């Protein structure tokens, strides 16, 4: 029973972080039609910035907010420097077909990922370093019993819940959020009704960058920080986004928690070595049974 509870709580806390990663992927997919494989590279980079600040004596929260800001700025810069020029090149023969239009931004994002990882290796050495948590990582004791969850788990879950509420309010209640949803729905029509679609695109990159940096800050205390540590997180986040529906923010959150549970239960009841294979199995299962994902809309894009 205790193992079950431990797996459940670890799955919830991990799942919350995967939900953030998947949400970041979904926001860029809706805003720009690109799956950003560099996303966790950006998160890794901004977490290193926070780590450097904190080791040099800054407060945890200074590092925390600087990292979020750096993540947002990096996302916006990547869109302006790489992705926007790329989408303006659609007229060239290489990019004229639909399949290559989908493939080339993915290649660009892989290049960005490689560059960020190499740069982090040069700047901050390749060996792993720890990253501090703002709350205790020992099991909480309630009435003398050590519970299977930590105060850091509670911190993670509440931060993610807060972020999801703010994001939902942003998309539903603000005019900028409305403009972004309109752009996601139909770029031409949005443009015709006076929305500057280039700006909403860049904004979606920035929001996604901040969300994934938050994920980086929340996951590194339990894993360690090195240029490659977040690669697995990206894979899980991608699978979560596909499971939930690549164009559905609510689906991304759902997918994140499903993946969190799958990974946690495989780790607790089977062996951690099977985690990759179970992720692959979940991904293939969804792609075969319901390619558009649990909450994905029907014909936004053929899979």
């Amino acid at each position, binding site marked *: 029973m205790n193992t079950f509870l431990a797996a459940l709580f670890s799955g919830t806390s991990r799942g919350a972080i995967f939900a953030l990663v998947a949400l970041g992927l979904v926001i860029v*997919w809706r805003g720009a039609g*690109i*799956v950003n*494989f560099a996303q966790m590279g950006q998160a890794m980079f901004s977490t290193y910035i926070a780590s450097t600040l904190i080791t040099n004596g800054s407060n945890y929260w200074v590092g925390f907010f600087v990292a979020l800001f750096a993540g947002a700025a990096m996302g916006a810069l990547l869109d302006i420097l*790489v992705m926007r*020029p*790329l989408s303006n*090149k659609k*007229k*060239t*023969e*290489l*990019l*004229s*077909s*639909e*399949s*290559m239009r*989908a*493939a*080339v931004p*993915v*290649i*660009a994002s*892989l*290049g*960005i*990922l*490689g*560059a960020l*990882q*190499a*740069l982090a*290796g*040069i700047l901050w*050495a*390749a060996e792993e370093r720890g990253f501090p948590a703002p709350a205790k990582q020992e099991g909480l004791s309630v009435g003398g019993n050590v519970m299977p969850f930590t105060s850091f788990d509670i911190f993670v879950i509440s931060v993610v819940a807060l972020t999801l509420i703010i994001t939902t309010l942003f998309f539903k209640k603000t005019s900028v959020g409305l403009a972004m949803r309109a752009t996601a729905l139909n770029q031409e029509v949005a443009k015709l009704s006076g929305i500057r679609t280039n700006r909403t695109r860049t904004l979606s990159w920035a929001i996604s960058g901040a969300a994934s940096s938050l994920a980086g800050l929340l996951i590194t205390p339990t894993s360690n920080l090195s240029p490659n540590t977040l*690669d*697995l997180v990206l*894979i899980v986040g*991608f*699978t979560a986004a*596909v499971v939930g529906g*690549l164009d559905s923010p609510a689906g991304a959150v759902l997918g994140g928690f499903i993946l969190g549970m799958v990974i946690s239960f495989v780790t607790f009841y089977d062996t951690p*070595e*099977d985690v*990759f*294979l179970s*992720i*692959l199995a979940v*991904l*293939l299962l969804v*792609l*075969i049974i319901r*390619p558009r994902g649990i909450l994905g809309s029907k014909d936004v894009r*053929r*899979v």
Partner: protein
Amino acid sequence: MLVLGSRFDAYNQAQLAVVLILFIGVLSVTILTGISGQLSLGQGALMAVGGYSTALLIINHKLSLWVAIPLSIISAGIAGLLLGVAAARLSGPYLAGTTLVIALAIPTLANRFMSIFKGDEGLPVDVGYPPAWFSNIFGEPSYEKWQIYVALPFAALALFFASNILLSRSGRMWRAIRDNELAASLNGVNYSRQKIYVFIVSASFAGLSGALYGLRGLVGPSVYPVSLSLTLLTAAVLGGIRSISGAFIGTVIVVYLPDWIEKVLGNFELSEQVSNFLPSLISSLLLILTVVINPAGVAGTRLHKHK
């Protein structure tokens, strides 16, 4: 090339062998992505299939590598068939992401089935020594030079097949799928079936490359990391994703880049940290610049703008 090979020292002979071997792998990307428009990040995993097949056949069944390698190409082709059946339903980022998950998941099998694949330790194999008749005619080659002699006929064969298949009926169908699936199917191309075929062909190239790559000394998870798939893709894009000469140019760039950087920066006192990561930083930046500024790559300057 053999003349070149004989003039080089052992290190450069080994590098030349790597160029020949990876060229075959890069061709697999050129065929899959450049010709038929399917982006796969799992080519490294298919190379691993080829490498492990060869190693197991040589170690457990005492086969000569000239028998083991063709059998490994078949086994990689079968892996490609399975991948193709799954991939025929997918496109664009879905395919890229799924193949990336596969590339990460396959190497963990080495630890899962410890008794067969020997985990992280891997299976030691090598190209062995040339047969007596070879040494009698050409003289006793060094180990590195023998690697080149083994890789060369396979690379030539791969080059021959690749250039012919691109001009064949299949090549035309694959280009049609890349350019417009709907139009292709209206012209009688069964695109699901053709996608599976192109995956089989591409996987066979990758398997051959992986078999030779492992025969340099070791077949193990560390020999076929995910970054290997990205290296192949980088080489194919830098050289020119649609052309065979581009595949060769890209391979040369990717293999020799670390040496060139060391030559240029050798006078500066660089820390180990910088010199370890500089090649991958520069090749990543080259990849981004190529995609943004000249997506046709070094060899593909003939691409013209559409009206």
